[in-house]
């Protein structure tokens, strides 16, 4: 048969299993957005709580709280697969 060029290139014996790339080797390549957003969210929620304690600036407190909520949403949308849902839920809180 003249089917050398059409020979099946597949080889069962040459199968290699998938190894997920380790993240310790390239931490800089990963997108830092969800981490930043998490941090911002926590900072704003802290601010919100502190302002509430002082009870001075009710208006600013509202802004802080809402921004914190937005930050947690953005962090969730950008999140990497390796992060678990518990962390997500706590950030929403």
């Amino acid at each position, binding site marked *: 048969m003249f089917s050398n060029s059409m020979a099946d290139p*597949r*080889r*069962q014996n040459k199968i*290699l299993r998938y190894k997920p790339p380790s993240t310790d080797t*390239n931490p800089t390549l990963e997108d830092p957005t969800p981490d930043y957003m998490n941090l911002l969210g926590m900072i704003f929620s802290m601010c919100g709580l502190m302002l509430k304690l002082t009870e001075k600036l009710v208006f600013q407190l509202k802004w802080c709280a809402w921004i914190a909520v937005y930050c947690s949403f953005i962090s969730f949308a950008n999140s*990497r697969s390796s992060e678990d849902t518990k962390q997500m839920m706590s950030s929403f809180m």
Partner: protein
Amino acid sequence: QMLLLPFMLLLLASPMTWGRYDDFDDGEDLAEFDDNDFAEFEDLSEDAGMEPEATASPRVAAAPASDQDDDDDEAVVEIEDAQDDFEDTETPDEDIKYDTEEFEGFEKSSPSFKDPINIITVPSHLQNSWESYYMEILMVTGLLAYIMNYIIGKNKNHRLAQAWFSSHRELLESNFALVGDDGTSKEAVSTGKLNQENEHIYNLWCSGRVCCEGMLIQLKFLKRQDLLNVLARMMRPVCDQVQIKVTLNDEDMDTFVFAVGSRKAMARLQKEMQDLSEFCSDKPKSGAKYSLPEFMAILSEMGEVTDGMMDSKMVHYLINHADKIESIHFSDQFSGPKLMQEEGQPLKLPETKKTLLFTFNVPGMGNTSPKDMDALLPLMNMVIYSIDKVKKFRLNREVSGVSSTHAIVLIGCRVFGASLYVSLGASQKADKNRARVEENFLKQTHAQRQEEAAQRREQKKLEKKQMKMKQIKVKAM
């Protein structure tokens, strides 16, 4: 003492009721409201309707100490509530006129009627209208918009991924024994589907083919699920990308480093990639020799490699799909991007792997539809072709330029002053390059390695001393 408590309450409550009556402008209105508010109560119990008024008027005139029953307390509460009702229904802008005749007796006792009426607007946080919640409404609307965009974006990315896979599935399944693996199952069985890493990245692992170890395909879509990203992209359009990484066994590839792609990508890769910066020191060259478009450039270790790689079929692929090709990078020394130089340079050469990397841009510049995925199929054909080609490609091992027979003739002719120029074969050049790189690396780290060796020696000395001390102590004991 039991009576003292309600008395105190009345004392406290009465100034408020006094104040209320001042604000509460005139008796005529009182009568009007009475009629309107208590109209429905008229039939039921006129007493109930009249009661607040009846108790109110004596309260206004009489001293607060007169009634000390519990009923009065309740009446006080009732009045206050009634006052609240009156205040709410009263619009701040209402012009209140009064009939002077009706209030003959009041003029002296309540001089406030002659003063201009101060209509105090109720502060916003006490109002019960929608306006006071405008901020909350705004924020919640924003959040809803974000959530909607999240769902829509996520679904779009998913559809694009599935479209890509369905159009490429046949080609992949005819070339690889294993198509789709997430690494978790016991048996090496094709899952036949993409792994979803997150809402915008999907990957696919294919393996089981001649000429290569495996191929990892990453579909890097835009973050359509993040509204911020969507808005940012309106300023600066970006493409979806498909990244393919083929890892090869040692025998599958000869030793060379080569890259071709858009000029911008080449410049960036040359700076970022460890192997390209070390082995391809020249600036990206134009591909005009091969009729490549102007915006494409070539980075190569040496001319033979370029000539070897740019055969007619490859050039054909490159020209026809130039807009979709971001970069193509073949390397036997691939170790990823340059690591950030920390305090101490890494002491070991980074691990290298023979790799072919392809980065393709999905047409549509962000506004892609599932149909656009078919346009990437010829590029996958190019990938398969490249794998087979790289396996067959071997650098020239002969001493080229001046072959050995020529050398003998020249010596025989005794051409004085003519230096015998022997150009090394491409393969030897490549080996030389690699040796040079390793040498440079060793030189750079020499000083540091010396320091480390000295430290280790010192530590050993210390340890020996400590051992000796211990032995002496033991002996003494």
